[in-house]
């Protein structure tokens, strides 16, 4: 089979994985080697669906012994199968990297023969890449559930980031749709990877040349919309994963009906807007010091599609507002709808020079569209602003309305608006 055909098959099989980032690690280039990484990551392109392309995201092979119902690679699915040899995949990675097409490699795999064999194949690829080609770019490797812990460890020593997909947000769903996978088979390696990262950090603090185990951390992904879990359930699980497994990121992937075996309604559309709201809520957990319980509760188990979750929280907690720009602390500023991490930091920096007014806020680049309803500057609201409480809800919704009124309501950018 031609390399081009393999690439078509194995990129197509990998594309449903949402986790394409190259962030979390700063490594400068070294003489004699190829490549470096950037802490913030780097997008090299954007595909026609608007998603960032940063890594060569492919499977080692799409030959699989399992039969997960939601997955295109399931054994029972009649699709062309292929496998990269480790050498081929390295050539391809280096060729792309030198031309600045990509930031590195995202290596995942279906399970060929058994989890150990699959992991060994991936290890061979990464060893050639790191040792023979001296590749210093970004490598994201997917751990294979059920593989020998020693092999997973070796994989992690070659990768920058590791991930293992939760896939479905609850055990019953997992039992239903992925009968070959057990929750434990996912959580055990996740715990192992966490411990590996912690230990490696500790050793590095003592000895600079200690081996680095997944220095850019660990992430996971879950599929949204294939099974009936509420947003509250998903966010609570997410929070537990951040707390207990110290994950860097949790990715959500709106289920694409790739399999007739997962029953979906006739007019099923992938819940892209829901996915977008989950990402916004996820930001609140990671950067805005929110807890899952604050964002959603039993009476309100799902995110409001009309408004971003921070606005929703603010509307339920009007007693918290208005916030005084010139006195509020960082955490309080972060709770104001429309103020992002960067705006909040700028406010702190600028107000040391003198008191801020609304003009000054605009100059700082603070977008007042939403924030104006929740702020005072030296005790004063924005002039000309008078609005009743339920007028406020309508108004905030209308700010998002152009996006919501578009023909495909789900078509929102993942990365717009600072939440």
């Amino acid at each position, binding site marked *: 089979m031609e390399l081009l055909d393999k690439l078509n098959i194995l*990129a197509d099989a990998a594309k449903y994985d949402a986790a394409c980032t190259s962030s979390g690690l700063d490594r400068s*280039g070294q003489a004699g080697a*190829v490549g470096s990484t950037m802490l913030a990551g780097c997008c090299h*392109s954007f*595909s026609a669906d*608007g998603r960032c392309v940063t890594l060569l995201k492919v499977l080692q092979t799409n030959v699989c012994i399992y039969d997960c119902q939601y997955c295109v690679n399931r054994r029972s699915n009649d699709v062309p199968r292929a496998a990269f040899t480790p050498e081929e995949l390295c050539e391809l990675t280096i060729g792309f990297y030198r031309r600045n097409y990509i930031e590195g490699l995202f290596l995942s795999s279906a399970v060929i023969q058994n989890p150990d064999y699959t992991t060994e194949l991936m290890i061979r690829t990464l060893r050639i890449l790191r040792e023979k080609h001296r590749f210093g770019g970004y490598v994201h490797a997917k751990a294979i559930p059920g593989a020998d812990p020693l092999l997973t460890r070796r994989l992690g020593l070659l990768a920058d980031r590791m991930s293992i997909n939760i896939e479905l947000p609850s055990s019953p769903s997992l039992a239903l749709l992925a009968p070959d996978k057990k929750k434990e088979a996912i959580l055990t390696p996740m715990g192992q990877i966490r411990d590996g990262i912690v230990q490696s950090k500790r050793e590095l603090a003592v000895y600079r040349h200690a081996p680095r185990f997944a220095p850019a951390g660990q992430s996971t992904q879950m599929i949204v919309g294939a099974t009936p879990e509420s947003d509250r359930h998903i966010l609570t699980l997410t929070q537990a994963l951040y707390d207990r497994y110290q994950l860097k990121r949790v990715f959500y992937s709106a289920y694409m009906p790739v399999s007739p075996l997962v029953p979906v309604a006739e007019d099923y559309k992938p819940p892209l807007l829901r996915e977008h709201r989950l990402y916004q809520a996820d930001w609140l957990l990671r950067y805005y010091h929110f807890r899952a319980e604050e964002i959603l509760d039993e009476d309100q188990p799902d995110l409001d599609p009309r408004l971003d979750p921070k606005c929703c929280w603010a509307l339920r907690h009007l007693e918290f507002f208005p916030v005084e720009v010139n006195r509020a602390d960082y955490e309080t500023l972060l709770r104001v709808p429309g103020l992002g991490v960067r705006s909040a930091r700028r406010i702190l920096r600028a107000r040391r020079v003198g008191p801020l007014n609304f003009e000054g806020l605009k100059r700082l680049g603070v977008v007042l569209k939403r924030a104006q309803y929740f702020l005072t500057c030296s005790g004063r609201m924005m002039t000309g602003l008078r609005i009743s409480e339920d007028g406020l809800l309508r108004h905030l919704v209308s700010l998002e309305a152009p996006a919501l009124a578009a023909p495909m309501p789900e078509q929102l950018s993942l990365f717009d608006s600072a939440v």
Partner: protein
Amino acid sequence: MPWTQIACQYDGSYSGFLSCVFDCYVNREEPVEFHTPEDMCCSLYPLRTVETDETHARRVYLSFGKFGAEGRRLAVRTFLTCLPDKELWLWRYLCLAYEQGPGVGRNLTNPTVDRVRKAVWHLEHEAHQYKGFTRFSELDGVLVGEIEPKNRVLPLLRDHFCGRYPQERFALHDRTHGEALFHRPGPNGWAILPVEDFSPNPAGAEEIAYRKLWRAFYDTIAIEGRYNPKCRMTNMPKRYWAMMTEFQKDWDTALPELRTR
């Protein structure tokens, strides 16, 4: 006594500009216009022609150390931006910075600081985008790339690409400003030089094969059910596309797009 208002003529280089700053402070003159030899035209103000003096330039450059990290960054980078009348804005900014010291970097609501800060942000943002959107082609063993930036981003890209490709010979051409970053392996193996004519040889078989592989990958990974051209356009504005391999029309040209001038 107010400083005499003058028009400064200099050679357009950064050292030249710093020499202007030096002379103006020494002579207690306030520049209200800057001219380079290309855009020479009549002026209502007395014209002062400043010879570039590296020693003077260096002294001014070192004095930026007093502005704090943020203040210094603006003083150094504003000159690379495409801000209209950047020299005047930079002059005003420097006067302010000499007056306020390290506080200047925090003075975000001052109109001058605001102006140069936004211009520098734009420059840095563009440089960051080019870290990703630049495409190289391997032509006769050299990696060759071309960009068309609004700001002079090459000095900001230098560290990045030299660090990324320490073992490569490469050339990155800035078509807008007619200069290129050259690199060869080894310590200090880089230079940014003016370039008159940039016309590399056509691509060979291996290069074309990689272009096709990349295009195949790019087309494959888009998920149909999520098609969202508007989002793509926001994240990657059209002006970058012309020079990117994934949108290339003819496979065998030297670079994704070579405009006939």
